[in-house]
C-alpha cells in the first residue's frame, strides 16, 4: 500500500493550524462487487482504521468503513506545537497495516 502525507501550507510556524492530507493507494473493496468475468463476489478489503500520531501521542483516531472512495484521502487539522515527527498508521480489515511518517519542522 503506497501512502503519501502532505502538509498544507508548506511553511508554517509554531502555533499555526495546518492541514494534514493523508492519501493511501487502496482499492477499498466493499465485498459486494462482483468479478466481471467469473461473477464471484470480490472479498471485502478496505482500510478500517487510521491513526495520526505526533511524537507517538495519538492526535486523531479514525474508524473507517467501506463507503470511502478508492484511494482514500483523509484530511485533518493540526496545531503545530513544536518540532517533531508525525506518524500515520493505517490498518485494513484483513489485518494489513502500513506506517508512514513526516517530520514537522516549523519556521520562525
Amino acid at each position, binding site marked *: 500500500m503506497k501512502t503519501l502525507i502532505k502538509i498544507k501550507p508548506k511553511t508554517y510556524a509554531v502555533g499555526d493550524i495546518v492541514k494534514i492530507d493523508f492519501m493511501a493507494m487502496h482499492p477499498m473493496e466493499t465485498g459486494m462487487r462482483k468479478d466481471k468475468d467469473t461473477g464471484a463476489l470480490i472479498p471485502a478489503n478496505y482500510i478500517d482504521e487510521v491513526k495520526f500520531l505526533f511524537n507517538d501521542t495519538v492526535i486523531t483516531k479514525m474508524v473507517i*468503513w467501506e*463507503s*470511502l472512495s478508492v484511494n482514500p*484521502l*483523509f484530511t485533518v487539522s493540526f*496545531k503545530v506545537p513544536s518540532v517533531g515527527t508525525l506518524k500515520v498508521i493505517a490498518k485494513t480489515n484483513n489485518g494489513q497495516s502500513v506506517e508512514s511518517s513526516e517530520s514537522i519542522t516549523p519556521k520562525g
Partner: protein
Amino acid sequence: MERRSFLKSFTAAAACVAVLPRMASAADEAKKVAGPNEMSYATALAAITGGKAVVESAKVKVEAPEIAENGAVVPVKVTVDSPMNEKEYVKAIHVLNTKNGNARCANIYLTPANGEAFFGTRIKLGGTQDVVAIAQMSDGTFLSAKQNVKVTIGGCG
C-alpha cells in the same frame, strides 16, 4: 358525461404510473446482496448517540456538492465551529449517509491537539441521499448538519 369519464380514466392511468416505479424499486431492493457491514441509518445513529437527542446546528458545516455526477467520488468536508481546548472540544465527528447499504462512512475521534474540528475525505454514494455529520461535543451533546447530494451515476457496484 364524456368529460367525467375522461377524467376518471385519466386519474386511473396517472395512479398506475405513480405506483409502477415504486414496485420496481422494491423488487430491486430485494435482489441486492446484503453486505458484511449492512446497517441502516437509524441503527447507526442510535449506536453513536445511545438514544440521546441530536440537535441540528449551524455550528456544524457539511460541504458536499449538491449534484455529484459520479457517485464513486464525492468530496465531503466537515467543519465544527467550537473551541478546541482541554475544557471544551469536539470529541468526535461521525460522517453518515442515509441510503448506502452501510450507513457509516467514518468516525473521527479528535483531541484538542487538532486545533480545529475539521475532517475532509471522499466517499462513495449509491444514489441520491443525504450526507449527515454528527458532532459529539465534550459536554456530551450531539450537534448535526446534513447536505443532500443528487447522484447521477451511483458509485457502488
